[in-house]
């Protein structure tokens, strides 16, 4: 039940963040959305992901949002309120496709799902002895799929470099 309430609040926050005209409010609501998401993930047992979401979604991301808002107009201009038909159709089509796909999904939390019987058992059975770590997530992240994580580190470096490329001006050097 608690999970359903959390998920309900998630939807409320998502809607509120989108409809708010004051951008600062939107950003604060978005950070609440991230925090609730982190709690949902703890409830789903994904502690590592939850820490990350709390640190990134509710932390860094919000700080960056606010930093940008100090440099640009902070209010969404009031445009004529009209329901845009084309985007609505596109969104509904995508949503219906997803729901169509979901019909064949294994039940939520089912241990018999193929995701739990193929590939993963090896990580769970041999992970500790093969990687020498107790945290399975860390073991897969840094060892079995360590190359992905190198890519991930490169992505974050890339983001920093791209921002430097786009924003750093030559006038001052600190």
């Amino acid at each position, binding site marked *: 039940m608690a999970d*359903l309430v959390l*998920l309900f609040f998630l*939807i409320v926050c*998502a809607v509120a*963040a*989108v409809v708010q005209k004051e951008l600062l409010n*939107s*950003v604060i609501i*978005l950070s609440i959305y991230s925090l609730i998401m982190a709690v949902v*993930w703890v409830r*789903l*047992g*994904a*502690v*590592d*992901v939850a820490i*990350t*979401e709390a640190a990134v*979604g509710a932390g*860094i991301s919000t700080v*960056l949002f606010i930093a*940008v*808002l100090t440099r*640009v*107009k902070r209010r*969404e*201009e009031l*445009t004529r309120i009209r329901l845009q038909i084309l*985007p609505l159709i*596109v*969104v*509904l089509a*995508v*949503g219906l496709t*997803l*729901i169509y796909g*979901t019909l064949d*999904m294994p039940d*939520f*939390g089912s241990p018999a*799902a193929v*995701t*739990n019987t193929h590939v*993963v058992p090896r*990580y*769970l059975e041999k*992970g500790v002895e093969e990687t020498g770590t107790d*945290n*399975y*997530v860390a073991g*897969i*992240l840094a060892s079995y799929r360590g190359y992905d994580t190198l890519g*991930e580190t490169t992505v*974050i470096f*890339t*983001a920093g470099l*791209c*921002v430097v490329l*786009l*924003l750093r001006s030559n006038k001052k050097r600190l």
Partner: protein
Amino acid sequence: MMEFILAKYNYWIYVIIMMIGFYAVISKSNLIKKIIGLSIFQTSVFLLFISIGKVDGGTVPIYQGTEAVYINPLPHVLILTAIVVGVSVTAVAFALVVNIYREFGTIEENAILEMIKHDD
């Protein structure tokens, strides 16, 4: 029917959130709102992945003896990477928005398009 819906409730919620975010991305004219929509859109997909990993009666995937039943850790690993990618995209988007604002003095896409109508 009701049972069928309840058995997958996480999945339905993720679809709803994804639609909200996606709608904001393609219909909003304000560039910051587009980025907010993009974040919501991406996190909803993360929610899907984490929901896949859930195993009834499973514990957190940290070694607690060989008999324990664990939650599937692989989606967690994938989503850790995807979150990083998400925040990187957001950061680059911010940099672009700041540059756009410098150039045009507004972050409303419609207003900018009006301004550059006569550029080639």
